[in-house]
C-alpha cells in the first residue's frame, strides 16, 4: 500500500473491504459464499490522476517488493471503448448538423414552391402597395409555425421513445444509458425551437430572393 501511495500518478489506493469483495463475487457464486474460507486475493483499487502511472515500472517494482501482487490495468481494455464512445458522440453531433441542413434545404424547397404557387397573390399584394417585408413575413410566419409544430410532434415522439429505453441503473453498461438524465431533458425542448429558427432563416432568404426577381 505504501509503495502504491508513493508511486507518482496514483491518486489513491484503497484495499477493498470484505463486503465489497463479496458484492463483486455475488453474481457468480451466489449470496451464501463464505468468503473467508476461499483463497480470494485481496483487491486494491487504484485511481490514477493526471497522466496516470507508469504501468511497466510499477509492475517491476511490485514484483521485487511484493512477489504475489498482480497489477491489472483496466485502462488498457477500457481505452478503445472510451474512444468508441467519443466517436459515437461526434457521430451524433455530425448527424444533428446534417439533419439541420436537410431541414433547411427542405424548407427552402417548400417555400420556393409555395412562393411560385402564390405568384398571383404576390402580384396582387405588390399592386396594392405591399412592401417586400410584408409579403415575406406572411410566408415566413406560416413556415416557421409549421416547422415549430412538426418539430414539437417529432420531439415528443423521440422523448417518448427514450422514456421506454432501459434506464441506467446499478448494472449499467454504457449502451443502456441512452436516456436523458436530469437537466438533460432540456435538449429535446430545444429541438423545436432550433428547427423553427432554421425554418425562419431558410424561408426569409428564399422569400427575399424570389421577391427580388419580381418588380
Amino acid at each position, binding site marked *: 500500500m505504501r509503495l502504491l501511495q508513493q508511486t507518482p500518478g496514483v491518486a489513491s489506493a484503497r484495499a477493498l473491504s470484505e463486503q465489497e469483495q463479496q458484492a463483486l463475487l455475488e453474481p457468480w457464486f451466489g449470496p451464501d459464499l463464505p468468503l473467508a474460507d476461499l483463497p480470494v486475493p485481496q483487491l486494491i483499487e487504484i485511481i490514477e490522476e493526471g497522466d496516470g502511472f507508469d504501468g511497466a515500472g510499477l509492475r517491476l517494482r511490485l514484483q521485487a517488493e511484493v512477489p504475489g501482487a498482480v497489477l491489472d490495468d483496466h485502462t488498457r481494455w477500457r481505452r478503445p471503448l472510451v474512444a468508441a464512445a467519443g466517436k459515437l458522440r461526434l457521430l451524433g453531433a455530425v448527424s444533428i448538423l446534417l439533419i439541420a441542413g436537410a431541414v433547411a434545404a427542405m424548407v427552402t424547397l417548400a417555400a420556393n414552391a409555395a412562393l411560385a404557387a402564390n405568384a*398571383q*397573390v404576390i*402580384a*396582387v*399584394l*405588390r*399592386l*396594392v*402597395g*405591399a*412592401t*417586400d*417585408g*410584408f409579403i415575406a413575413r406572411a410566408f415566413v410566419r406560416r413556415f416557421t409555425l409549421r416547422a415549430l409544430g412538426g418539430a414539437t410532434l417529432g420531439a415528443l415522439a423521440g422523448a417518448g421513445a427514450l422514456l421506454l429505453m432501459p434506464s441506467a441503473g446499478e448494472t449499467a453498461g454504457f449502451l443502456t444509458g441512452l436516456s436523458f438524465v436530469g437537466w438533460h431533458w432540456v435538449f429535446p425542448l430545444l429541438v423545436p425551437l432550433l428547427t423553427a429558427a432554421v425554418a425562419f432563416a431558410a424561408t426569409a432568404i428564399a422569400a427575399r430572393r424570389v*421577391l*427580388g426577381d419580381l*418588380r
Partner: protein
Amino acid sequence: MIELDNVAYSYGGGELLSGLTLRLAPGSFHFLTGPSGAGKTTLLKLCYGALVPTAGHARLFGEDVRRMDRDAIALSRRRIGVVHQDCQFLDHLSVAENVALPLTVAGEGGGDLEQNLIELMTWVGLKSRADALPPELSGGERQRAALARAVIMSPEVILADEPTGNVDWEMSQRLLRLLVELNRMGKTILIATHDLGLIRSAKTQVQARVLRISNRKLQAAGVDL
C-alpha cells in the same frame, strides 16, 4: 405627379415606345388610346413603376423610378390606384376584405376606416356582395370591386387599363360615372381604352384630354373625336 420625360421602352428587340413625354397634372383627366399592342399597358406600367424605362426618365411624385428601391415603389403605389382589365384578387378573402387589402398591407385599420369601407362599397354598388368571394362575382362587379380597391387609400392618381374591357355598355357608363366623380373630387385620372364611344360620352361630362399612341409616339388626338 407622374412625369415621363423622353421615355423609351423595349422588351428586348425593337423599341415599343420611344421619345415619349407625358405629364399628368393634378386633377387632370386623360384618355390613352391606340391600337392593340401599341403599348398602352406598357405606358401605364411605366406610370406606376412596374417597368423601368430603357431610356429617359420616369418620375413618380418627383422621384426618379430608377433611383427608387423596391419599398419606395411599394409606398408610391399607395398613392396610385391601379385598375386592370383582368383584375385579380385574393380568392380566399371576401370582397370586402379584398377592397380593404391596401389598408391591411399598409398596416392601417380601425373603426373610422370600417365606416369608409361600407360607404365605398355602397358607392360602387357592392354592399350586398361584401361577403361574397371574388370568383363568385360577375365581370362588372369585379371591375367595380377593383375600382373600390384602387381608391380606398384615397390615392392622388388613378390609372385604369381597359376598365370597361369586358363589361356591357350600361356597366361601362356606370364605371365611367364613378371615375368622373373621382376626378371632380380632385383625383388625377388616366384611362387606357380603345373604346371611342366611352371617350365620347366622357367628353360630355368632363374636360378630358385624349392621347393616342401611334408609331411608338404619343400624340394629342383631341379634335377628331
